[in-house]
């Protein structure tokens, strides 16, 4: 019994010490979690896969993001991320100067017939207009009206091969440069999101042409995901069966920088 009491005291002491150090430790004790490929971080990141699976199970593949009325557009769409690739991408500057006359949206990769569309061709196709809420990963939201061609139509025309699993969205805008090599923005989605009825290659915003600050000439809207899954300045949509050899292998620019791939929460 005496031993038991001793052990209990010891256990209590250990418990109290553990709880105390957890609370008192400066939070920089956990800064190692920021290291990419740290085994603990790798383990914690597995929860992202659980979230993806859970949301895909709970949310119907065709479930629509809420659409709002005109009266709920109370401000311009807040530009974020790259707002003007003309400052560092010469090819993009030339496109803007010629009013996107030489712009082509390419559908490539694992498709039967690779396709190319001019902006005018896209604008002349049947369009979809939706007033949706844009949710930035930072936490803010903004309601705006987006007009564009459903991506499913372009994918059907190109005929996606059965082995394709993801759509990669390649963009003109570049991050970095200077000391590190500049990298082009890109992101990706699964084919459920690529074929979703609200996924559009938008060229219109709030009833006008999509401005440079918001991704002209084409921004892909994946309405059930966060803002970093709404790639701007898109020039190529590539169908792939994996993305481990692209960039740092995480499926996108922000994804390569530690953000979760799915972006649904």
């Amino acid at each position, binding site marked *: 019994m005496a031993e038991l009491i001793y052990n209990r005291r010891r256990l209590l002491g250990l418990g109290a010490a553990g709880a105390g150090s*957890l609370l008192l430790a400066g*939070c920089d004790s956990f*800064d190692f979690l920021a290291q990419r490929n740290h085994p603990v971080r790798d383990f914690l990141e597995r929860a992202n896969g659980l979230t993806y699976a859970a949301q895909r199970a709970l949310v119907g593949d065709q479930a629509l993001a809420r659409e709002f009325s005109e009266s*709920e557009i109370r401000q311009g769409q807040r530009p974020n991320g790259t707002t003007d690739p003309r400052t560092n991408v010469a090819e993009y500057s030339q496109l803007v100067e010629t009013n996107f006359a030489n712009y082509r949206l390419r559908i490539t990769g694992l498709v039967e017939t690779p396709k190319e569309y001019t902006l005018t061709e896209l604008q002349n196709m049947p369009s979809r207009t939706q007033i949706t809420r844009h949710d930035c990963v930072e936490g803010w939201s903004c309601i705006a009206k987006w007009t564009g061609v459903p991506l499913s139509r372009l994918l059907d025309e190109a005929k996606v091969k059965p082995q394709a699993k993801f759509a990669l969205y390649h963009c003109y805008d570049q991050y970095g440069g200077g000391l590190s090599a500049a990298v082009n923005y890109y992101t990706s989605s699964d084919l459920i999101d690529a074929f979703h009825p609200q996924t559009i290659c938008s060229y219109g915003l709030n009833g006008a042409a999509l401005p440079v600050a918001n991704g002209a000439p084409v921004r892909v809207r994946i309405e059930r995901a*966060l803002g970093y899954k709404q790639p701007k300045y898109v020039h190529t949509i590539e169908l792939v069966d994996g993305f481990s050899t692209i960039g740092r292998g995480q499926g996108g620019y922000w994804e390569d920088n*530690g953000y979760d791939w799915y972006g649904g929460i």
Partner: protein
Amino acid sequence: MTDQVMDPATVAEKPAKPKGPLIYRQSIFTRLTHWIWAIAMFFLLLTGLQIYNAHPTLYIGEQSGFEFDNAVLRIGAENTPEGPRGFTTIFGQKFDTTGVLGMSELRGNTNFIGFPGWATIPSVRDLATGRVVHFFFAWVFVAALAVWFVASLLNRHLWRDIILKPRDIRDLPRDIWDHITFRFKHGRSYTPLQKAAYFGVFAILFPLIILTGLTMSPAMNAGWPWLVDIFGGRQTARTIHFVVMVLLVLFFVVHVAMVVLAGPINELRSMITGYYRTSPGTEPDNKDKSNG
């Protein structure tokens, strides 16, 4: 309760402080989930403040007003004639919070950031890592809640200690007074005020913080649009998520203060070994009798 207040005469007669029986009070499920929550909520709080820092403004409604004003809380820094200062604005009332909110020091550097580095994980601005850690522990938190709920339903912890019965409601004012005057009763089950506090946490705060968290998910908004409706918009949900966090921090402060005041060794022992030293006069059996 009053018959247990120590009479000086009784104390003088007895050499040792009278002790009630040592009873098995907390099941393994209650104890395990308690400590899992302690760890999970530590990380959820500190990574939550990290996530908040990415856009340190809270709004009411569906969207964030950039060209109109629907902000209720804003933390930021501004240049003043005396140099930059940190400010916190709550419902239009502006407070100088330099040193803590809006502008603070981290390892000798001045940071223009919402919550200071000592209150976030990681200590530097790192939204991506904050999100990874936050969502991991969100799963841990919810899984522990599911285990706790099923176990507490089966072992009657829920009925015995959490659900307020009419008798508890009747005895609540007296129990509040007992707590104010630091007269704590240590019985088999929780006292009315304890029941009310834990009922508030389990039935109100925990569901609210989980549901408002889910409401911020654009994917869940498509699947469960009623989430946005019950909270009145995504940005309102974000604000409620923050307010519930503040209430849970307040709960934590009171919870720890009560443990210290009511006898930290006994209280901690009951949450580690399950055994609890009750007040004199408590029935030694584990039946649901000594309802405070």
